[in-house]
């Protein structure tokens, strides 16, 4: 029981990070129907910007962790969302009217460009950040030797993710920007005819997606303390899987998918074998897609007339 609970905490923290990245995939897919393969690398760029910001803050003497964290959050979200915006402006907008595969190829290219750019600019070696947020709380101690613990960083990750998720759902459902986004999702051309500034809406979607990815990048950096130019690839694949599992295009689906992937990996490692955790996660994805081709919370595609 204690063991199960401990693994639940591990899985939730891991799944939250996947979920935050997955939102970026699902939003872009929802609004323009393309998979933004560069999103995982935007996440990686966010982690690097956060690391550089942390090191600069430490160098100029700001070492109070809450203040530093707040500033890093601001800097990283701002700069990373600029990357997100630039990627859309440079690689996707010029291709918007063209055939469906063009922006997809462009996205893969963008992913390679970002990876190589960071590798050249920052070097190929792993970059490390010493643990900043330490401390653990004992949740449950039944007297036997296994004590259920949750660390402050795990709490931070889970709380931040749920807060952002709630805030973002509110943005989509109750603001005028959210209404524009939903309009673009339903029919881009019709939305434009009715006076929605589609270019602006799509740009903002990319900005927000990148900002969320940068938050995931910060969490990743704080949690694991080690990043390199290649982390975006694995995280991107997992998050994309999460988005598909939850139902691509659906926001709660992305979050659910992320948590599910995190939990499957964790529980499989916990009760079966660590070696086969990726096999387990992807097998479940395949099984779900066979029986629910649109994912768990995805709506069936309606033929647009």
């Amino acid at each position, binding site marked *: 029981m204690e063991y199960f609970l401990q693994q639940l905490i591990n899985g939730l923290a891991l799944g939250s990070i996947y979920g935050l990245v997955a939102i970026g995939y699902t939003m872009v897919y929802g609004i323009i129907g393309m998979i933004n393969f560069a999103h995982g690398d935007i996440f990686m760029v966010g982690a690097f910007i956060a690391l550089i910001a942390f090191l600069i803050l430490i160098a100029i003497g700001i070492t109070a962790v809450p203040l530093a964290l707040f500033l890093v959050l601001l800097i990283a979200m701002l700069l990373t969302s600029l990357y997100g915006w630039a990627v859309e402006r440079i690689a996707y907008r010029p291709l918007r009217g063209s055939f469906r595969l063009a922006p997809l190829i462009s996205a893969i290219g963008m992913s390679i460009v970002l990876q190589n750019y960071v590798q050249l600019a920052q070097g190929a070696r792993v970059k490390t950040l010493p643990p900043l947020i330490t401390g653990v709380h004992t949740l449950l101690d039944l007297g036997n030797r296994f004590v259920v613990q949750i660390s402050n960083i795990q709490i931070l990750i889970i709380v931040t993710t749920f807060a952002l998720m709630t805030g973002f759902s509110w943005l989509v459902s109750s603001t005028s920007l959210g209404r524009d986004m939903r309009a673009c999702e339903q029919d881009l051309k019709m939305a434009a005819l009715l006076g929605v500034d589609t270019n602006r809406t799509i740009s903002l979607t990319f900005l927000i997606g990148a900002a969320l990815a940068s938050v995931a990048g910060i969490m990743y950096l704080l949690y694991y*303390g080690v990043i390199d130019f290649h982390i975006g690839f694995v995280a991107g694949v997992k998050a994309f899987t999460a988005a598909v599992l939850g139902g691509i295009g659906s926001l709660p689906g992305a979050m659910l998918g992320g948590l599910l992937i995190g939990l499957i990996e964790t529980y499989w490692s916990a009760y079966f074998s660590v070696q086969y955790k*990726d096999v387990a996660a992807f097998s479940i994805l395949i099984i779900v897609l066979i029986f629910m081709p649109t994912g768990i919370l995805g709506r069936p595609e309606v033929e647009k007339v």
Partner: protein
Amino acid sequence: MKSARLVGLFAAATLLAAGTSANAQITVGVAGPMSGQYASFGEQLKNGATLALEDLNAAGGVNGQQLKLSVGDDACDPKQARATADRLAGQRVPVVFGHFCSSSSIPASEAYAEGNVLQISPASTNPTFTERKLWNTFRVCGRDDQQGSLAGKYLAANFKDKKIAILDDKSTYGAGLANETKKALNAAGVTEAMKESYTQGDKDFTALVSRMKAAGIDVVFIGGYHTESGLILRQMRDQGMKTLLMAGDALADKQFAQITGALSEGVLMTFGSDPRNRPAAAEIVKKFKAKGIDPEGYTLYTYAAVQVWAQAVTQIKSTDPKKVAAAMKAGKWQTVLGEISFDAKGDITVTDYVMYQWKADGTYAELK
């Protein structure tokens, strides 16, 4: 624009001229993970080879010819290693110092054997590397069966009644070392409480760590590289585990301490007795330090590999790889590691793996 092009032409012309006038030049290869997550080890190899060549060239080269270095990057990826090997063999280099990862050295050695290239690995410890009866494979480091035997015996002697876990990263090196360690441990009458594998490049080990916590593991032996070992250590401490970490020679890099911070205190590691402390190395270590390089890990091993080759070439007055290989197996060579000789397989005849302990300040010292 035009002038720029002219300058380019001029530069190309001078380069060509330099190429022809210095035809008394030998290009040798160094290969390892120059990029990717094990790039810090590639750097060790490159540093060692670069300084060795500089020193040789300053002393007049070998047989009157200057040496030039061609660097190959395998990113510790077997496929890329084979491609790198083909490229170096295509350049007709007589010898390659490398690779680092056993999983790269083994496929590369076949390409070198076909391309008539001698291969001296400073760091690949998997036994298979020299066990395939290839004419061209040498190494100046020990083997994992020796290393694993030390680790296994140490575990059995010191942690007999403790719970021991053995982990590996499924790589040629990691799984090989973990299996050798397990063999030695079981031969000493101790059985491990857990044996698991993880995937290279993973960052999240929380599930594995909780599992070890539930099993009450006291000591964990990892056959794997420093990035994953460092993260496992960090996540064990995060979950309040005081488990002792023990690993092989792939921990011998400062980056391990960067990942773990002060948590590295007490970590055990098997590695050849520190070449930096050997009397033969004192002067070379000073030279490295003057350049701002700490010749840690496999830096001096690479330097020694170059020395052996250069001495053998000088002795037989030829760079013909097959002849050099025969000479290397026959002779005794004075290197920065001390005197080295090779057996018929290309392994060094004397190896002295010892146990090291990391300190909180990110250095390691022999455990006495």
